């Protein structure tokens, strides 16, 4: 991993991050577009949840992981504290792996 590669990835990532806020400044967005952008962030985050809960690389990520995230999701839905959501998810997955569930 050469330093130049690290710096190029860093610069590119920063440019991607800076572009959003800068573009947003240039134009006044109508309410409908703002709603759409807000929905798009939610859509992306939820897709990220689905992918990191159900896949590992290009394959199914295993039942221990999937069930752990579902337990966390149920806890969040039942309005348990955020910390409990995280601990329950991680503990469920770790526990399932401990008893041999992949």
């Amino acid at each position, binding site marked *: 991993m050469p*330093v130049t590669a690290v710096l190029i990835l860093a610069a590119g990532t920063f440019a*991607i991050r800076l572009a959003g806020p800068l573009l947003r400044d240039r134009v006044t967005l109508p309410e409908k577009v703002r709603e759409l952008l807000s*929905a798009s962030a939610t*859509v992306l*985050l*939820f*897709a990220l949840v689905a992918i990191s809960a159900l896949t590992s690389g290009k394959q199914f990520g295993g039942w221990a992981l999937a069930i752990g995230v579902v337990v966390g999701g149920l806890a969040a839905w039942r309005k348990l504290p955020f910390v409990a959501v*995280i601990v329950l*998810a991680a*503990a469920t997955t770790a526990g399932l792996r401990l008893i041999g569930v992949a």
Partner: protein
Amino acid sequence: MRSIWRTLDAVLLRDVAAVALGAAVTGASFGAISVGSGLPWWMPVLMSLVIFAGGSQFMAVGIVAAGGSPAAAVLAGLVLNARHLPFGLAIGDVLGNGWLARIVGSHLLIDESTAFAMAQKDPSRARAAYWACGVSLFFCWNAGVLIGALAGQAIGDPMTFGLDAAFPAALLALTLPALKDVATRNAALLGAAIALATTPFLPAGVPVLLALAGLFVFKTKKEAPCPSPQS
């Protein structure tokens, strides 16, 4: 800056701390894995400071360790990080004005800070949550990576602790309030289905972007009152 910290309450800080702790442990594993793959200790540390995007860091190190070219690692990392552009468009106004806030705030634009900002009801809380999450994660992630890089193989596999479930569970909890809106929920479900269906065939990062196609079923609200979010 001071007003930001005053807006924060204990609950929000506790929630941020939980995510930051998870990031520290994941960071430690990143440091350990990088050193284990033959990189000098300072390389994962440098990467974490200047890239500050865990997914793309793991991916870049993995590609190079598997014999791939650095150019391929950079390209894959950039594709994976492309989602930060729409994130910035959606929540760009919470960073605050002025060049310093814009530049530092952009570097702190990550999945977690975006999700924390989106989960807040009013703009001042969103701003406080964004900065609290971004700054805490920056310090915890980098401290974790440094410890992991120095401690090396002594750090266990984060999978043993189920930490790979903690990240999606945290994002899901933060996204739930926004998913109460039917139009957003339908778009998100369709988007997630598209992302999952395309994951086996496309490079990492692309399926998440394709999820945006779910917005085709999104209709902006007309007269219907906002569903009152509560948490």
